[in-house]
């Protein structure tokens, strides 16, 4: 029990917390863009699983990690486009079509794995990069600057997304499409085009999120390896109040709690059964949603299809 009090324990928790936040960041940042434009993509989990499989498969056969990333992004883009078509042009109920895409991704990634790979295999994914000078700083270096490249990119994405959303014309169009599509339309913004862009981009980022697991941190592919992570990413968007920085805080909270419970389980004689420890991040998410949903407001046109009036 005394293990908890050591510096090494907490460095371990924080470093793996940073690593675990990575897939959440990719998926939730992409989902933020989509939701700000008015589309709820609930198929994130399916897109992640497909991305995870594609990246794993390409790495297994070519060893080319960047080609693998491209494959993951491509399959995410295809699924994102399909989701965009169904929710924007066919105006389908987004909560349900998203579940359809989730089931498709879950089944398809398992199917492909079973038919094309079959056995459990590991690949060598992105190695940790020790950033010169910074990684040598005691404690901080170990926590932040000895991660793999996908981790760094994920964190870099937060300010980029924040900038795009709040400071660029595209960001303005995205927000207008999500808040008042009729007004945006009357000002000459193509709500349809904006939503297509954000939902496809969200698909790409979800594919990358899956890849960040299968060739970044875990370096294997398993059936349903995301196990609800994509849904949590969607929850983080709500928790973060539809702002990239808020999403970052949510992702860190969730991944730190996950990392902590994983480390605590390793302690000999830890009194709480591991099954109960595993549920803590989910409980934390629900409590966090209860606390935040009181003061944040969702984009007005979220889940509402937009049809131009003639």
């Amino acid at each position: 029990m005394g293990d908890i009090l050591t510096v090494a324990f907490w460095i371990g928790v924080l470093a793996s917390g940073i690593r675990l936040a990575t897939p959440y960041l990719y998926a939730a940042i992409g989902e933020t863009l989509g939701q700000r434009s008015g589309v709820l993509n609930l198929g994130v989990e399916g897109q992640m699983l497909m991305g995870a499989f594609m990246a794993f498969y390409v790495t297994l056969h070519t060893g080319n990690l960047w080609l693998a990333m491209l494959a993951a992004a491509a399959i995410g883009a295809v699924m994102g486009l399909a989701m965009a078509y169904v929710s924007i042009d066919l105006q389908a109920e987004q909560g349900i079509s998203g579940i359809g895409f989730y089931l498709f991704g879950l089944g398809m990634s398992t199917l492909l794995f079973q038919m094309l790979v079959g056995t459990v295999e590991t690949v060598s994914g992105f190695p940790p990069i020790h950033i010169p000078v910074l990684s040598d700083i005691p404690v901080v270096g170990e926590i932040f600057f000895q991660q793999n490249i996908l981790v760094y990119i994920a964190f870099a994405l937060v300010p980029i997304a924040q900038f795009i959303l709040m400071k660029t014309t595209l960001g303005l169009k995205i927000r207008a499409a999500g808040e008042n599509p009729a007004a945006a339309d009357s000002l000459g913004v193509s709500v349809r085009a904006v939503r297509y862009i954000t939902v496809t981009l969200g698909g790409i980022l979800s594919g990358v999120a899956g890849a960040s697991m299968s060739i970044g941190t875990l370096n294997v592919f398993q059936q349903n390896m995301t196990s609800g992570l994509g849904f949590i990413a969607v929850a983080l968007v709500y928790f973060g109040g539809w702002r990239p920085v808020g999403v970052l805080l949510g992702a860190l909270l969730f991944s730190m709690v996950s990392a902590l419970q994983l480390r605590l389980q390793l302690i000999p004689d830890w009194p709480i059964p591991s099954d109960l420890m595993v549920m803590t991040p989910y409980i934390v998410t629900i409590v966090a949603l209860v606390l935040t949903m009181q003061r944040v407001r969702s984009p007005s046109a979220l889940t509402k299809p937009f049809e131009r009036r003639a």
Partner: protein
Amino acid sequence: MKRFNVSQLMDALLPVFATLAALAVGAVMLLLLGANPITAYAALIEGAFGSGNSLAETAAKAVPLLLVGLGICISFRANVINIGGEGQMIIGAIFGTVIGLAMSGAPGWLVIPLALLAGFAGGALWGAIPGALKAYFNVNEILSTVMMNAIAVQIMNYLLRGPLIDPAQADLASKIPQTAALDAAFRLPRLVPTRLHLGALLAVILAFLVYILLWRTTLGYRIRAVGQNPDASRYGGIRVRRTIVIALLLSGAFAGLAGVIQVYGLNYRMITDGSATGFTGSAGFNGIVAALFGQLHPIGTIPASFFFGALLVGANKLQRVMQVPSSFITALNGLVVVFVVGSDIWRRRRQRRRQIQATQTALDEPTLTAESEV
């Protein structure tokens, strides 16, 4: 009584066409995977309907889909998206199993109804929590129900590895996470000498009860009113928040019943492989698919559940004969959902056209009745 016309027939057949389209895409997938789609679908049909036994197997598989689907009809009518069927099934099963284990030795006529009620209550609890979170704390139910699923799985794993573990397993090194077997007297009676049990009959009866609930009671009216227009409902004096909680509570209760019936009708004990699917067979999700396919109508959900039960049973045959993993069916179900909800736009368009026509007819022949009823 509404007049029957071609347009309405098209509405009813739309999901069938959508499903055929999804099956066509599935056929392309099979081709790409090197399997002959005609042989594959033939194996699937053979597996699902080929013999009396496989028909009974299909019906048994349809039971949890129908029960979960009935709950989905209720919640979706209130515009509450319940994705928590998996967790609600698990908690219902746990509640019912605890009753059966605690009352071992008691007569079956007493324990079975009590266990079913406990399962109903367990699922209701697991549905009411996200219901209350949505109604009173503005927490999106899609997200909270997904979280509740994850929590339920861990509760199951904990109980089956710990307090509820089969005493026979507790002393073994292998420690299979399962409860003790229920008394043979507690098993749901078989309808025919197959695995088809009383739960099937119960589910069909409940489908008619849910129909009555939704269209013949005040509560049902409120649920549908809240789903169609919460603001108008509020002005009309309906307590919207309470109705939302009740809708999710009932939705969860039916899923809970599905869970306990899986235990008392088929498995006679709870066992976990660590995942939700290991216990539910994804019925919590597939029930949504069935309900949508039945156009969120309890009676329509009966044949829809049978259809998806057939897909699931046929998938086993597909796996044996063609070596196509059953995950193909999961992917296919996903496609069916996407195609069915995607094709709904044509129904809505026709509906709008009918309304416009009706309005024009009404304008042509003005009457006072419409005014005086307000």
